[in-house]
């Protein structure tokens, strides 16, 4: 690829909309370094005060699970229903528990 067409590295952007809330993925930006990624994320995703905090992460540093592995990854939690409070039988008349 010629540098003329180089679109720089891709970074994923996460924004926290209010303090106390989780950072949520909003999209990506292109940038040559962290500083530019941060600036671009600010310009592109928070023009209306959408955020109180920004995270940028190089896209290549993120590993995502494969949906085809969902059974293997998530089924074990389905057959361990004793992790759920509703699994337990409480005596009649028990309150506030």
């Amino acid at each position: 690829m010629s540098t003329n067409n180089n679109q720089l590295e891709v970074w994923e952007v996460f924004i926290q909309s209010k303090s106390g809330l989780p950072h949520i993925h909003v999209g990506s930006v292109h940038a040559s370094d962290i500083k530019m990624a941060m600036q671009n994320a600010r310009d592109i995703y928070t023009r209306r005060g959408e955020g109180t905090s920004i995270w940028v992460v190089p896209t290549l540093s993120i590993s995502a699970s494969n949906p085809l592995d969902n059974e293997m990854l998530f089924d074990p939690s389905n057959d361990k229903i004793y992790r759920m409070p509703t699994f337990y039988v409480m005596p009649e008349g028990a309150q506030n528990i």
Partner: protein
Amino acid sequence: MSLTSNATLETFQERIDQGEYIEPKDVFPDEYRKHLIRQMSQHAHSEVIGMQPEGNWITRAPSLRAKQILLAKIQDEGGHGLYLYSAAETLGISRSEMINQLQTGKAKYSSIFNYPTLNWADIGAIGWLVDGAAIVNQVSLQRTSYGPYSRAMVRICKEESFHQRQGYEIMTKMMRGTNEQQKMAQDAMNRWWWPSLMMFGPHDSNSPNSGNAFKWKIKRESNDVLRQKFIDKTIPQALLIGLTIPDKDYKLNEKTGHYEIGKINWEEFNNVINGNGPCNKQRINHHIKYHNEGAWVREAALAYSKKQK
């Protein structure tokens, strides 16, 4: 991820039918991917090329207030382009590939942006009519089946309503102004009305790309349904401020409650799509020029980041 066996194709369709969203790592047909890349990149290109006709008036905006608003609006459109490029990249196409397709004419953009902006009222007409039409389409696309596209649409729709309102405000002010201002507003209305209706694409009876798009819930409502929504919303707004609808055949159907319009000139539409609109060459040349002139910035940024490592 592309998909081969019939069994997985069935599972994909079942998920779509149940209203599930499809995410980048899910298994889906290659045609689904292709359709999305075509539609999303075309959508992104439209946002970006759409900055040019409005940019034409930044230095000549009639007041500081108008200039600030126009700048913010155009900056939003650039942002919309970037949200959509970013969403399209999750399908495995690179930004440079998309830009290349735009610049070589392989990818299209909305043909409305090939019309020139001749007077200040055009900025009003674009915000009110062109963004108005785009909003109707984009609201519907918030429920599109591809997750990243849908999320980009939600974000875009939040920002769009100021675009339409600032346009209608300009039109209103001009219609309340001098005779000359009123003439300019009506002139802009005359030139932008029909192209805005064409933004929704060909009639349903003549729409070649829609079969799979509906089956896969990429598209949720048909061209004609969306166009009608726009017509019903917009005609009363025009009449309210004293604009004439440039269509001698339009009328309100009392029974259905919908406005009916005259014949759309599809020959003009096809002509503009096929590159013969008033500004097609200018728009692409402008894009190429500034893309190339910005090359040194990208090169310098890369050189700097290498040095830091």
